[in-house]
């Protein structure tokens, strides 16, 4: 049989390895062919017969009572099929929906609107133009109420009452509520011990470090197409879902439609970055409208709706304190966070983690004791609180510790790198138990930091900076030079089901594979790529584990009818969790294949050794069977009693998170007269453990750094005092173009995860986590020799100019 197998017999092992396209090679992406030819299939490309289009009527106010809604003029427009309001949803108990954080969120506002652009009515019409026209004709009579936008004022005694629906609830999903605008207090660490460390400390610092409200803003906005087949009683939903299986479960629980009669499909997704984890009113309304009308209904948000109504991120106001000895050994960390969650607590965190994994905030340092408290509050802003290209609240945590380290270094008169080197968790301390409860799996921080210093000629940069500062003082230059150092430790791959779940479903993930008689396979996983290249990289893992070429393995995700259950893609969990399932499923295949090979070669299993793509008899290398030959035999020539076929499934519950890390160095030049800054150099060293596809890793790092650049240097979803959202278009919200975006220099070290089947840790979010700190530290460092302790982000040119002006530096 199998001519191909015959041909490879004589090939060199290197050629066979190259043919495999397995782990470690920069395999070109299999998904590219359709995207470069305009043949991707995104949600807005889905067009079903008889499909209608839905559009929202949204609140112009940040806080107002709805006195009446008149839909008659809208309903009179030819082509309008329905206008849904809360009154229509209430009998179905769908005017509110549960959030991932244990709160409820209004699908359509009932008595009040709580943020500008909140969903008030849903107009369904024959096309999107008619729907938009009719939405303008829905008359809503509002009575304006006092607006609360400042989270620091949310718990004042006379603060406006926002959530009348829960005003008497003294107990929330995460414990006691102290005030009617309070959501939760989350505490971790040893308070008394930490307080004692501060009492004894030789040096302390304390600073309010805010991380502004931003938005992931993927190129494709959120969208859904719902189609109810009333005869079969089946609902099909296409949507921009990073976690399609969870959407199906939630849809079943909310609608009462049995889960097996709901078909949730996430087709191609045009970027997610956390934006597409949550469940939004648009999804629910398209489903309800389809159920009511019996025809497919599409909803696609525009960019303004996307930026102002779905999935903000951050809005964390962190008061950080460090205690240290005079010579720079850190003895304690204390932090309080005021978390602005907007009008509803719709944060996308594992259910038991209201502040995500913020307790990774001791960072890469051996800090003996720590205590953290987080208070979540309501304001008249959009709900969300997603992890924008990071694991849950990890970029906030990392930003806090990395700014605090620089502030401490300045106070001690130490170089920021020297302080970091002095406090790093040492390689021999892994697995490392952090003061706030995590077990770091592996790391070699000093090596990474020193490599970054060498590659960037760090000492020379500092010497140049010193010279430039002197030249500035002499009036010979108007430029300020900043060197930003950031060393981050991420916590990704959520997560062990013992402490991570989404609405009760453990955060495992899965892979199943079927190898067909010719040795070609289809593998399906519970995650969902949004551009990460899963179709390419999962096949590489399977290729190495099984011994068939990645080109012969088709990867599918996103169709809940065919893919095994999984918790989706966010928090860099695809490689750590589903990637592990892929490796294990490959090993299950190989175990069975070995039995078949032993049968074919008439030897015992122990007599066989595996080599790239085949089993060989030890000592008799000419006696061998390729995996392709084994695959064929799996369908016609099996050992006695073995069931035919070659397929396997694996559900992987990770024993721990993974802890990628990295050292980033940024050099910035700032014009003191204009505040205009230029990134001169950005060096990013990432250690994500075993590297599956270096080309894709580098691409992920480039993209994450560019998003970090946007966040640090300009992004903000700002609300004025009237509750008007000021950053809701691409004119107002900074998304870097190719012109502003710096050149990136990438590098790596490899410290495999000891508990992951192939040692991989995940990388997609690391550059955002480390990048924001590096940019912000660079800007702050440019002023470090002056009377400045901490400059809040975003560091746009105007704000930077204001700093220069305040310091009397402007010409």
């Amino acid at each position, binding site marked *: 049989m199998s001519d191909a197998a015959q041909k490879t017999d004589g090939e060199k092992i290197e050629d066979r390895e190259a043919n495999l396209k397995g782990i470690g090679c920069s395999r070109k992406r299999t998904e590219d062919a359709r995207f470069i*030819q305009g043949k991707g299939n995104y949600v807005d490309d889905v067009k079903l017969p008889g499909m209608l289009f839905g559009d929202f009527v949204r609140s112009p106010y940040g806080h107002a009572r709805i006195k009446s809604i008149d839909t008659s003029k809208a309903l009179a427009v030819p082509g309008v099929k329905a206008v849904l309001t809360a009154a229509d949803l209430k009998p179905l108990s769908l005017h509110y929906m549960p959030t991932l954080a244990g709160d409820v969120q209004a699908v359509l506002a009932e008595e009040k609107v709580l943020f500008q652009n909140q969903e008030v009515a849903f107009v369904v019409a024959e096309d999107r133009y008619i729907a938009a026209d009719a939405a303008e004709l829905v008359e809503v009579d509002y009575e304006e109420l006092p607006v609360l936008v400042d989270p620091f004022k949310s718990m004042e005694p006379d603060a406006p009452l926002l959530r009348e629906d829960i005003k008497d609830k003294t107990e929330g999903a995460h414990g006691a509520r102290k005030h009617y605008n309070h959501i939760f207090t989350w505490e971790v660490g040893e308070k008394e011990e930490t307080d004692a460390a501060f009492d004894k400390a030789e040096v302390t610092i304390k600073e309010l470090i805010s991380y502004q409200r931003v938005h992931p803003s993927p190129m494709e906005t959120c969208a859904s197409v719902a189609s109810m087949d009333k005869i079969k009683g089946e609902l099909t939903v296409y949507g921009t879902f990073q976690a399609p299986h969870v959407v199906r479960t939630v849809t079943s629980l909310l609608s009462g439609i049995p889960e097996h009669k709901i078909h949730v499909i996430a087709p191609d997704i045009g970027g997610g970055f956390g934006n597409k984890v949550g469940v939004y009113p648009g999804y629910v309304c398209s489903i309800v409208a389809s159920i009511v009308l019996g025809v497919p209904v599409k909803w696609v948000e525009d960019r303004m709706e996307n930026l102002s109504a779905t999935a903000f991120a951050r809005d964390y106001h962190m008061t950080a304190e460090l205690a240290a000895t005079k010579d720079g050994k850190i003895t304690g960390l204390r932090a309080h966070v005021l978390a602005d969650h907007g009008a509803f607590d719709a944060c996308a965190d594992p259910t038991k983690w209201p502040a995500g994994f913020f307790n990774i905030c001791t960072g890469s340092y051996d800090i003996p004791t720590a205590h953290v408290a987080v208070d979540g509050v309501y304001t008249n802003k959009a709900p969300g609180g997603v992890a924008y290209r990071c694991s849950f609240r990890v970029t906030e945590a990392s930003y806090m510790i990395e700014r605090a380290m620089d502030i401490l270094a300045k106070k001690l008169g130490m170089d920021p790198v020297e302080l970091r080197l002095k406090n790093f968790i040492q390689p021999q301390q892994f697995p490392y138990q952090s003061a706030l409860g995590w077990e770091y799996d592996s790391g070699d921080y000093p090596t990474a930091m020193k490599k970054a210093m060498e590659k960037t000629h760090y000492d020379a940069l500092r010497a140049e900076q010193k010279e430039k500062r002197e030249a500035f003082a002499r009036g010979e230059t108007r430029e300020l030079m900043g060197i930003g150092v950031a060393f981050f430790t991420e916590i990704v791959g959520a997560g062990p089901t013992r402490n991570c779940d989404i609405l009760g479903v453990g955060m495992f993930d899965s892979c199943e594979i079927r190898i067909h008689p010719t040795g070609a396979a289809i593998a399906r996983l519970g995650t969902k790529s949004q551009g990460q290249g899963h179709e390419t990289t999962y096949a590489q893992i399977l290729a190495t584990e099984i011994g068939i070429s990645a080109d012969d393995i088709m990867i599918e995700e996103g169709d809940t009818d065919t893919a095994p259950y999984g918790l989706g893609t966010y928090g860099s969990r695809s490689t750590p969790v589903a990637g592990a399932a892929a490796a294990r499923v490959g090993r299950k295949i190989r175990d069975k294949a070995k039995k078949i090979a032993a049968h074919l070669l008439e030897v015992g299993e122990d007599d066989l050794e595996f080599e790239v793509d085949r089993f060989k008899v030890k000592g008799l290398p000419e006696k061998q069977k390729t995996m392709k030959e084994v695959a064929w035999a799996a369908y016609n020539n099996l050992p006695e009693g073995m069931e035919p076929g070659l397929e396997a499934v694996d559900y992987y519950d990770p024993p721990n998170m993974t802890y990628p890390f990295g050292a980033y160095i940024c050099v910035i030049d700032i014009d003191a007269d204009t505040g205009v800054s230029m990134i001169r150099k950005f060096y990013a060293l990432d250690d994500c453990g075993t590297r599956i596809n270096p080309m894709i890793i580098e691409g992920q790092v480039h993209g994450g750094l560019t998003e970090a650049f946007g966040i640090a240097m300009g992004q903000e979803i700002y609300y004025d005092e009237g509750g008007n959202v000021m950053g809701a278009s691409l004119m107002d919200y900074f998304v870097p173009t190719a012109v502003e975006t710096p050149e990136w220099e990438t590098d790596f070290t490899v410290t495999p995860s000891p508990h992951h089947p192939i040692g991989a840790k995940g990388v997609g979010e690391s550059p955002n986590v480390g990048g924001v700190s590096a940019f912000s530290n660079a800007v702050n460092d440019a002023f470090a020799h002056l009377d400045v302790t901490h400059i809040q982000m975003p560091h746009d040119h105007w704000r930077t100019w204001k700093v220069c002006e305040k310091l009397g530096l402007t010409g």
Partner: protein
Amino acid sequence: MAKTQITLTINGQQVEALVEPRTLLIHFLREQQLLTGAHIGCETTHCGACTVDMNGKSVKSCTVLAVQADGSDVTTIEGMAAPDGTLHALQEGFSEMHGLQCGFCTPGMIMRAHRLLQENPNPSDAEIRMGISGNICRCTGYQNIVKAIRYAAEKMNAATKEAAE
């Protein structure tokens, strides 16, 4: 709403159609012509996901009316590969240089790069960056897009040179 007849050339094919005067070119292309390669990312001319080529210029088809395209010659991403399926040098470059991730901006980015290379067949990296500054990508950080366009420029220039010799 009363409809207007338009006649235009799309990817080399003459097309006659009835459109409402307010129909945007992007909706006409995507929904009436079923050419879904060009995407809608903002509807405000900022992001460039809807970029197509019209009469020798890059246009953002979310802010061009279909009636304005009457009599014009439009090329979309679907018209870039040769009829035999051979990829355009830009399509090849984007794949070779890993110039795309989620793929949503890619059709607009390739169409803009196509016109850029007509305007300037041998652009510097800075000129490429300026030339595609009307097109936003959230995934790649642009570095590999610049490489992809340079790859295509070099390949196209080599082909031109060969043809001349």
